[in-house]
């Protein structure tokens, strides 16, 4: 048991359980066992006893912290005992890692910038408004110019000898032009024009928005409203007119640029693309499903169990409702998928990709949530279910009563047992006195015990019972009984602890064994690979011969690794094997106590060892049952004798086996393999995460335009069908189901076609035809 502390040691070789000698194989171990330890019964007991004591110590160490409620916490403690550490997959969830926000900093910088920007834009728009506020066509040019000049001071001609934008020198031919919005100068080439409608659009939009300003964080500096009236200052400056601008306003590129941006913003705000509208509806439907589906599933589960909490009709209604939502989702997502496909300039590939992805996720959603909707029982079925449940309940009641009786009987046995022990002597006898009385007024397990009766371990159950007895006795003020009961309880707990320890030890041992096995298996594979090689080449080099010797040695062990793990355990012979036995014995606690009276107990210190005889007994049993190897013996020697060809034949090593198995399977596979991009998250589905951007380029080539099965799908509008079939009472659900399935199969076909798996398409088409025929038949029948 010392090896418990160092799991690395446990796994190596076949240790003799008694002398801890390390042996090379099972056979050696067995022969060693027979030679050295036969007839050492007494010694065996002693050895095992010491092992048990060690285990107990280990257990105590582990349980030190757990104190009183050890019965409860036992199992948890042992889990870590068997593994030691924790699988990284099981590490407890952690909180979100560190984060740092730069938003406030960002906003500060942006605000400074935006203020500037917004002021600029607003200034331009106000000026624009002034420039368009009067009737341009009916005003003479001089007047226009005067007004224009009053809106913004023009830059002095002399100050600008070159066009600031293109750098050309101004001359008589290359004249200066002024921007009406900012007053700057540029040449004719660099001049831009603003049409009146454009100007109107901008000014009217800003009039609307200025009251309720656009972006939430827009600074307060933005100009509120604009004042008119600057028109009054009409000057009488007469100047030479080159052109008359009745329907447009000259400006520089910079101003125009700013205004264009502004226009774009206005446009976007007003325009909601179709896809968004559809998508919003889709999400609404999904939310609805998320609400309703769980409710329905709860109802259906309860109804199917024959309970009468919910109304069958009500559930039916809900089902229809949920199914309708599902159809809506399906229809909406299909619509999204086909949006704009018929437009002349086909939509941008990314738009198509977006639509496809939305459809895909809707399909995923539907598959996950709605295809799993369980069906409701029909009325007759429901009646039957109800009856069945009633019977079940009755049976349960009877069972419970039996359990009650049983526990009472056990309790009584125990009491009488105590009495008989008490009769054996000492102080206890005084307390044992009232035993006969108790029969009549035995403590009943408290009400809580019903829940506890589910405890898998009978010992635990017993412990609970006794605890409740103690409580009752205490309440009744019978201290003497309390004492006996407490002692009883202590014994039980000790027993339970022992059992748990043994279980834990066995668990860890089995762990080790398993690992051993696994390793062995790899070796087996390798050996067989070798063996095959040898057969192929028949090159009997010295090396190979030694290997095959090895092989023979280990082989018998490997022959049955899966069939006889228990015997393995027995062979490695650890404490664990005993626990299997002893726990079996403990299942009916009364027999134990029945045995006990034979022994004379020296007192409390011995109590802890109570179950030794049990484990010893079981050990002996185990020794006897080691014989399974005798059964093996006749077969294995023959295997050993004829080592290679016949023995290795059937098990050429998994790899070879796989290869053989693998090919025929592949063929069949073909049609199945074909990863459905809809259903195959971890399969070979095309993945947008692809680092190479191939996907977006490839995909657009196969948008589902021609022969799109979905178009057919949309033709058979489920809603019309629905209203058709609804009045028919019984039928509609089935028909809906059919339609639904037809749609689904169509989707699969579409899918398969896209991936170019024709065989699959065929199977699916066949199905589809069947379905359609059924549908037609049904319709014929009902109409």
């Amino acid at each position, binding site marked *: 048991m010392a090896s418990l502390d160092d799991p690395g040691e446990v796994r190596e070789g076949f240790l003799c359980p008694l002398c801890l000698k390390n042996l090379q194989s099972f056979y050696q171990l067995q022969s060693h066992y027979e030679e050295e330890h036969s007839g050492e019964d007494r010694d065996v007991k002693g050895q095992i006893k010491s092992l048990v004591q060690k285990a107990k110590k280990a257990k105590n160490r582990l349980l030190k912290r757990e104190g009183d409620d050890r019965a409860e916490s036992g199992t948890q403690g042992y889990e870590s005992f068997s593994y030691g550490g924790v699988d990284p997959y099981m590490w407890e969830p952690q909180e979100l890692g560190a984060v740092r926000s730069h938003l406030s900093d960002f906003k500060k*910088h942006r605000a400074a910038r935006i203020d500037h920007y917004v002021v600029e834009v607003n200034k331009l728009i106000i000026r624009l408004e002034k420039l368009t506020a009067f009737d341009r066509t009916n005003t003479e040019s001089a007047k226009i110019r005067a007004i224009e000049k009053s809106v913004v001071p023009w830059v002095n001609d002399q100050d600008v000898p070159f066009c600031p934008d293109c750098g050309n020198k101004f001359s008589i031919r290359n004249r200066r032009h002024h921007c009406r919005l900012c007053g700057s100068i540029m040449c004719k080439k660099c001049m831009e024009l603003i049409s009146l409608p454009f100007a109107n659009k901008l000014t009217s939009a800003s009039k609307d928005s200025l009251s309720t300003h656009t972006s939430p964080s*827009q600074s307060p500096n933005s100009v509120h409203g604009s004042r008119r009236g600057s028109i009054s200052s009409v000057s009488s400056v007469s100047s030479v007119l080159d052109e008359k601008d009745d329907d447009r306003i000259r400006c520089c590129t910079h101003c125009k640029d700013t205004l264009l941006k502004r226009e774009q913003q206005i446009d976007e705000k007003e325009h909601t693309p179709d896809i968004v509208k559809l998508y919003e509806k889709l999400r609404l439907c999904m939310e609805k499903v998320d609400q309703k589906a769980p409710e329905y599933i709860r109802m259906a589960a309860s109804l199917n169990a024959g309970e009468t909490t919910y109304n069958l009709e009500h559930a039916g209604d809900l089902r229809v409702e949920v199914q309708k939502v599902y159809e809506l989702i399906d229809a909406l997502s299909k619509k999204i998928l086909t949006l704009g496909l018929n437009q002349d300039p086909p939509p941008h590939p990314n738009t198509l990709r977006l639509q496809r992805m*939305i459809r895909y996720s809707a399909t*995923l959603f539907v598959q996950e949530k709605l295809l799993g909707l369980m069906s409701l029982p029909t009325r007759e079925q429901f009646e039957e279910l109800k009856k069945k449940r009633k019977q079940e309940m009755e049976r349960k009641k009877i069972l419970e009563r039996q359990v009650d009786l049983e526990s009472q009987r056990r309790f009584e046995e125990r009491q009488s047992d105590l009495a008989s022990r008490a009769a054996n002597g000492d102080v206890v006898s005084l307390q044992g006195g009232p035993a006969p009385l108790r029969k009549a007024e035995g403590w009943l397990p408290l009400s809580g015990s019903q829940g506890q009766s589910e405890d898998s371990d009978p010992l635990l159950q017993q412990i609970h019972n006794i605890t409740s007895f103690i409580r009752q006795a205490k309440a009744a003020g019978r201290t003497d009984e309390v004492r006996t009961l407490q002692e009883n309880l202590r014994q039980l707990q000790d027993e339970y602890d022992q059992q748990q320890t043994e279980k834990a030890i066995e668990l860890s041992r089995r762990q080790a064994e398993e690992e051993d096995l*696994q390793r062995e298996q790899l*070796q087996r594979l390798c050996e067989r690979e070798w063996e095959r090689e040898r057969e192929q080449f028949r090159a009997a080099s010295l090396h190979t011969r030694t290997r095959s010797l090895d092989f023979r040695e280990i082989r018998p062990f490997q022959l049955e690794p899966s069939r006889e793990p228990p015997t393995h355990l027995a062979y490695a012979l650890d404490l664990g094997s005993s626990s299997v036995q002893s726990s079996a014995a403990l299942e009916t606690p009364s027999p134990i106590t029945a045995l006990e009276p034979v022994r004379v107990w020296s007192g409390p210190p011995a109590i802890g060892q109570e179950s030794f005889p049990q484990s010893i007994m079981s050990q002996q049993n185990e020794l006897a049952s080691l014989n399974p190897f005798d059964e093996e013996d006749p077969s294995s020697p023959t295997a050993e004798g004829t080592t290679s060809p016949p023995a290795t034949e059937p098990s050429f090593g998994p790899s070879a086996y796989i290869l053989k198995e693998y090919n025929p*399977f592949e063929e069949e596979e073909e049609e199945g393999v074909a990863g459905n991009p809809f259903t195959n998250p971890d399969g070979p589905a095309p993945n947008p995460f692809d680092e190479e951007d191939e996907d977006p380029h490839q995909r657009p080539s196969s948008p589902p335009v021609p022969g799109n099965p979905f178009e057919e799908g949309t033709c058979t509008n489920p809603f019309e069908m629905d209203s058709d079939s609804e009045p028919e009472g019984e039928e509609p659900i089935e028909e809906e189901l059919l339609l639904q399935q037809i749609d689904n199969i169509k989707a699969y076909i579409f899918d398969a076609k896209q991936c170019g798996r024709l065989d699959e398409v065929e199977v699916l088409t066949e199905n589809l035809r*069947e379905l359609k025929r059924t549908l037609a038949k049904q319709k014929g029948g009902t109409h």
Partner: protein
Amino acid sequence: MNVVFAVKQYVSKMIEDSGPGMKVLLMDKETTGIVSMVYTQSEILQKEVYLFERIDSQNREVMKHLKAICFLRPTKENVGYLIQELRRPKYSIYFIYFSNVISKSDVKSLAEADEQEVVAEVQEFYGDYIAVNPHLFSLNILGCCQGRNWDPAQLSRTTQGLTALLLSLKKCPMIRYQLSSEAAKRLAECVKQVITKEYELFEFRRTEVPPLLLILDRCDDAITPLLNQWTYQAMVHELLGINNNRIDLSRVPGISKDLREVVLSAENDEFYANNMYLNFAEIGSNIKNLMEDFQKKKPKEQQKLESIADMKAFVENYPQFKKMSGTVSKHVTVVGELSRLVSERNLLEVSEVEQELACQNDHSSALQNVKRLLQNPKVTEFDAARLVMLYALHYERHSSNSLPGLMMDLRNKGVSEKYRKLVSAVVEYGGKRVRGSDLFSPKDAVAITKQFLKGLKGVENVYTQHQPFLHETLDHLIKGKLKENVYPYLGPSTLRDRPQDIIVFIIGGATYEEALTVYNLNRTTPGVRIVLGGTTVHNTKSFLEEVLASGLHSRSRESSQVTSRSASR
């Protein structure tokens, strides 16, 4: 301490914070890899993220009805792209998350570009590493060192990755490093520097025993990455190559179109999760069970759908069947290919000799076996070279070292010059002169007895005898016996108690064999949690590239080959 979970939480938080509505995830090359390791497509779709775009992709369309979640590394280029993006926003609103510390000036220039006020969030979320398994992370850096010293760019990336890891796990550790490695010391100092500089970030609730960061150098154990592996994950990486959980199967003869590239992720592939640490033989039997299971569920091809119930059953089972068939076909293909390679390359025999070279000290028998295998025509030049490398590493100073003879044999076998040069390069990389500790002969009495006993008993499995050197190091560390003169602390304070939370980082790359060791240590040592990381996760091929990239020995001539990082196979 679960690194996969840590990154996943970050991503979930980003998506959550952006509220309802259609979303697009804008990423760069590296963050794409980071996210794809923790989220599957279908999982993320259900959170309304429908598009995934690269920030540097020019082909993006204006879609004002989408919200954009940007998860980017804070590099100069990314900030540049983002500024362009904000000037002419393509989406309605932007939630920006940087995977590491971003400078104030970058925040400022971003803010100034956001004239249309589309940015709603700017945060640092420290998911700046590739989370491979709950206890294993990588930075996907191949060739981190020039000679014995850091490539400066990679040093800063590694520092960022390591500090991000610490932040995401909320650990402010004490640091120990391998004294014999200059690179380890340098990295330790850089990490410390960041911790000091960003001290506000590293203020976490104190634990009783502070966590420990141990920085090691691959040079100390060049043996482990040279060995063939027999556990599923490690074996797949060794023979097929795993790249961000993806496996390229396009070279498998007769592979079907769907299986050109498969994803092996323990997060959503139950079979893989249960089998990744088991050895090849067990996988074989498990996969057989999986197939039998599958065959039972498989609908009959010509199944007549006679009743509505039949059809209903068919339709309801179909998705599950599909999913299962995906798993089955994937693993059957992978395992089939593995076993094909094993027999084609005679790997069982090769591996046995490798293990002997790595674990035993019998020179003459080892030499004899290597010589014998070099004569075997089935042994590939790659395997032949690695056997000689192992020999050269182990018996570098042996009195009757006959490396020249073996090199002759290699030449006679027709092994290309590239591989022959690599033999000396590997010795230069991880030879005795470089190693800080003794890789082959045990030092203390306990270890000697252990080995003696082992020799007496014979080994359980010849193919998995080898224990990575890391096991011993960690074992000593956990027991508080790791020598301070070999692995000193950075700074004056030392750990008085036994460590509980340990982060080990290997410069020059970890291996899946070491990941398995750490996994087992986690499972068997109560109260200790260990996370392993490396600049990358190596197989032999990538390790040799790493050696080549470090430019030791033949610096000028071979440098051209560094660039050819073909798919590992």
